[in-house]
């Protein structure tokens, strides 16, 4: 029997990766900010997102080496105020592939766990899969300490 914790490679296979809640270090030079947590919403309970786009986005995420989170349906989670929405909202930097940003923000707020203001929300109802995958997998912005 092996013991694992939240820092186990099952969640963080790269040893030097920072934890989701970690903030940037106090370096005085510009640095790559902590990578964003990526969340993909499948919209499985009433499929208002075009299936071609959502399949392609998922395929492109799977083609990459990146870690990512997927949920079956954010609306379904918000309906019962799933505490995992809080875990997601606490991730700091976030990129979400779902639908209209106003709706996604509203769902989190209504569930009691508002998203951080700088959350990037990609809209699978209106944007192309390529555009969304580029935004999800793109490098984090350079920020000054």
């Amino acid at each position: 029997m092996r013991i694992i914790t939240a820092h186990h490679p099952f969640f963080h296979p790269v040893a030097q990766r920072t934890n989701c809640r970690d903030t940037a270090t106090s370096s005085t030079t510009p640095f790559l900010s902590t990578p964003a947590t990526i969340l993909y919403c499948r919209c499985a309970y009433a499929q208002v997102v075009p299936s071609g786009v959502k399949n392609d986005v998922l395929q492109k995420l799977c083609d990459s080496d990146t870690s990512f989170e997927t949920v079956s349906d954010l609306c379904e989670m918000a309906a019962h105020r799933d505490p995992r929405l809080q875990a997601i909202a606490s991730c700091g930097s976030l990129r979400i592939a779902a639908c209209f940003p106003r709706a996604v923000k509203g769902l989190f707020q209504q569930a009691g766990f508002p998203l951080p203001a700088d959350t990037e929300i990609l809209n699978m109802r209106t944007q192309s899969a390529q555009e969304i995958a580029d935004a999800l997998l793109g490098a984090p912005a350079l920020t000054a300490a």
Partner: protein
Amino acid sequence: MITHTHRPLRVVLYEGSGSIQLPAESRAKVMMALLDKGYTVTRSGLGAPAMPHDERNLLVLGAFEGKAPALEDATGKISIDTCDITGLEPDAILALVDKSRGEKTMNEPGKWKPWFPVIDYSRCTNCMQCLSFCLFDVYGVSDDNKIQVQNNDNCKTNCPACSRVCPEVAIMFPKYQAGPINGDEINENEAGREKIKVDISSLLGGDIYSALKDRSAAAKSRFSKERSPDKALDERKKCLTKLVGDGFIPADVLASLPSTEEILKKAVIAKAKAAAALAAQ
């Protein structure tokens, strides 16, 4: 219908050391199969941080070549199962996950549609018109007198009628087809949004906030005007019948209306709640 349940499992698709990487196509197929059945999946890879783990049980899937490791949570709070998926097709993997979930219930896609109003608080002016309009007690008032969606299970599937009565276009139904009800950006002209009428001179030299105050007073007085309960009932019915006629809401919403007595009772309660909240603003 189970609307108030928590996900029984967090599934982790593990491809780190000790396991074989799945081909990208198989990885996507496995994830699609699990997501479409209602599960949520963490893909444990490189680069981006994973969500912190929570109170749910963990199921770790990996191509462990027959040697799935036995694992135990250091905090002792979460049970961890590991499953070897070497050479398995998505259906067989789904069956393994179902088995691991056991008797624990969850909503299943296709059997229930998450349908309820979502308020865009950046637009909502707390006028309480939705509270007064809805006959199914979906709306309520929070302790700090703010409009709230309190009973989303009461909402009638595919009925977005209350979004039409909101003067601020602040009510969304994310599963609706068309904008702005689905959360799409609002074209203020098309929305016919009530604009604040200000005297230009008050804008140039005066106090814009007095205009806002006047507007809020006007909203309160609209509510405080005595409306006969019969008239209110008629108005709602007329409005709902028209919305059914337009194909905007499903016909079964009319069929499931409460009795006249109940509607009148609800109208009185909703009016009192709205008036109290508005007075407290």
